[in-house]
């Protein structure tokens, strides 16, 4: 068998193993093995490339491997689970950046590529990769709080973005020599600059609770960028793996949009934040019933069933370990404890699940919205930690800003305890009717301190 066929068959095996690896992610029991299979597939693809490619110089490759492998390894080892959204965010950026650079390097090696297939795929790879790269860094900066996490908008923003899109198309045509006769290399650099600017504009108007959507979307783009790079260098394993990642990101994007009952366009072009017509001065002005650690402990310690609802506030306070202790203590008292997780709780898909897994909560106690919503009417007490909009019954009111958003029906439980710093509104900017209901008790305070108090209070119950 000649070498070329062996290399192609190795790529094919690699592509198959990526699919097999992803399939194992369908259950927590097999997921870890699936990840290992995907990693092995990557190793195969790299080996095939090293054998196949005409490598004239190893210096650059080795320098890149040491730097990238070192940074990636250290980040993976030391990142905290609460920081996973920004970690995934910046990794999206590196993936997109690498794919863009492959396309850029191809162009730089032969700038007079012309308007053929190669030229078009190079520009496509540069555009998608560039948008992913800059957009992901903005997403990272927002999540890491290097810049404001709120939406950034300015007058005429959508018009400006549309003009940039036109500019990208025009510059692309000019780069390929279809329009005018400028220096292709200079035009290409301008094309890169505008692509990067587009990525920035894609992400700055998106903030707070909308981040799961944009992270998922950028995840999808990083895959598409890899596919585009595959078209550029004519490599099928790149096309296939990129398509798999693109599909994964797209599915998550759709799920996140569904979790908020909003379209992607609505998220991208600003839906929330437009709180006109809402009297902000009235928020938090109605009377509430309050409780403390002892009161809350009594409400959840002497009943049959408790459902815990975690939200982004839990991640901010890093109170997941204390929360798990409360759950364990209740379990020891014979209380049936479940955790209800809304699809868009936190800042990325599955954020809460990872936090609770880190705190050693058994994964069969985690329920998603569809699995648990019918149970609330049979639940004695619900403990809400740092969640707001996802439990707001106003979503059932057709006139509400969040009308139609799927919510956890916590208000149907006999008792609701809300742990929260204040009555301030969530990301949607509207008051939460749940806080003022007869069966709701507000337990104000910092989630971590309150949770520690609650652990102690539950332990001291008779």
């Amino acid at each position, binding site marked *: 068998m000649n070498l070329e066929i062996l290399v192609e068959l190795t790529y094919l095996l690699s592509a198959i193993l990526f699919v097999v690896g992803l399939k194992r992610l369908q259950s927590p029991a097999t997921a870890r093995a699936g990840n290992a299979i995907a*990693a092995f597939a990557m190793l195969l693809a790299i080996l095939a490339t090293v054998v196949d490619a005409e490598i004239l110089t190893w210096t650059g490759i080795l320098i890149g491997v040491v730097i*990238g492998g070192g940074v990636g390894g250290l980040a993976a080892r030391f990142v905290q689970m609460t920081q996973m959204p920004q970690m*995934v965010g910046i990794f999206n950026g590196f993936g997109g950046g*690498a794919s863009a650079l492959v396309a850029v390097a191809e162009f730089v090696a032969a700038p007079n590529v012309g308007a053929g297939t190669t030229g078009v795929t190079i520009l496509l790879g540069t555009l998608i990769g560039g948008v992913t790269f800059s957009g992901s860094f903005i997403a990272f900066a927002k999540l890491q709080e290097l810049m404001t996490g709120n939406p950034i908008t300015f007058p005429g923003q959508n018009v400006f973005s549309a003009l940039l899109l036109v500019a990208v198309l025009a510059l692309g045509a000019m780069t390929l020599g279809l329009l005018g006769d400028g220096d292709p290399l200079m035009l290409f650099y301008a094309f890169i600059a505008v692509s990067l600017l587009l990525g920035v504009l894609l992400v700055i108007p998106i903030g707070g609770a909308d981040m799961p959507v944009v992270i998922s979307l950028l995840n999808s783009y990083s895959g598409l960028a890899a596919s585009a790079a595959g078209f550029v260098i004519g490599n099928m394993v790149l096309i296939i793996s990129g398509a798999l990642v693109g599909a994964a990101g797209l599915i998550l994007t759709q799920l996140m949009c569904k979790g908020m009952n909003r379209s992607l366009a609505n998220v991208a072009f600003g839906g929330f934040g437009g709180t006109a017509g809402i009297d902000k001065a009235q928020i938090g002005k109605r009377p509430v019933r309050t409780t403390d650690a002892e009161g809350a402990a009594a409400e959840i310690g002497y009943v049959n069933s408790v459902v815990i609802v975690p939200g982004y506030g839990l991640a901010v306070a890093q109170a997941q370990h204390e929360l798990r202790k409360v759950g364990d203590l209740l379990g020891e008292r014979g209380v049936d404890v479940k955790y209800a997780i809304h699809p868009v709780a936190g800042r990325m898909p599955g954020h809460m699940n990872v936090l609770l897994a880190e705190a050693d909560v058994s994964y069969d106690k985690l329920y998603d919205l569809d699995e648990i919503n019918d149970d609330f009417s049979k639940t004695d007490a619900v403990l809400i930690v740092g969640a707001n909009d996802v439990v707001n019954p106003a979503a059932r009111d057709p006139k509400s800003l969040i009308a139609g958003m799927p919510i956890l029906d916590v208000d149907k439980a006999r008792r609701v305890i809300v742990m929260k710093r204040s009555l301030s509104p969530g990301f949607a900017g509207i008051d939460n009717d749940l806080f003022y209901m007869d069966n709701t008790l507000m337990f104000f305070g910092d989630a971590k301190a309150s949770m520690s108090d609650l652990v102690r209070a539950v332990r001291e119950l008779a």
Partner: protein
Amino acid sequence: MGELMIGLYVFVLATLAGREVITKVPPTLHTPLMSGANAISGIAIVGAIVVAGRAEGTLQTALGIAAVAMAMVNVIGGFLVTDRMLGMFRKR
């Protein structure tokens, strides 16, 4: 049939296959799914090695190094952090 068209067929079919497989991933594993997908998008390393291995001159060398480094962050970081996370998902 040209190489572009073959590539397009492969791309579309792989997307559909990915859709079938990934739709069944439970919400509890969505974060590991994303970071695992991140790692897989590090497949750009294949292109990066090709580009870096035949680089001539400073610009091409710099582009090659940057491409390999970025892709390797995803490959090493992505698979390791996904493994670390999945190790935490335990049933008791």
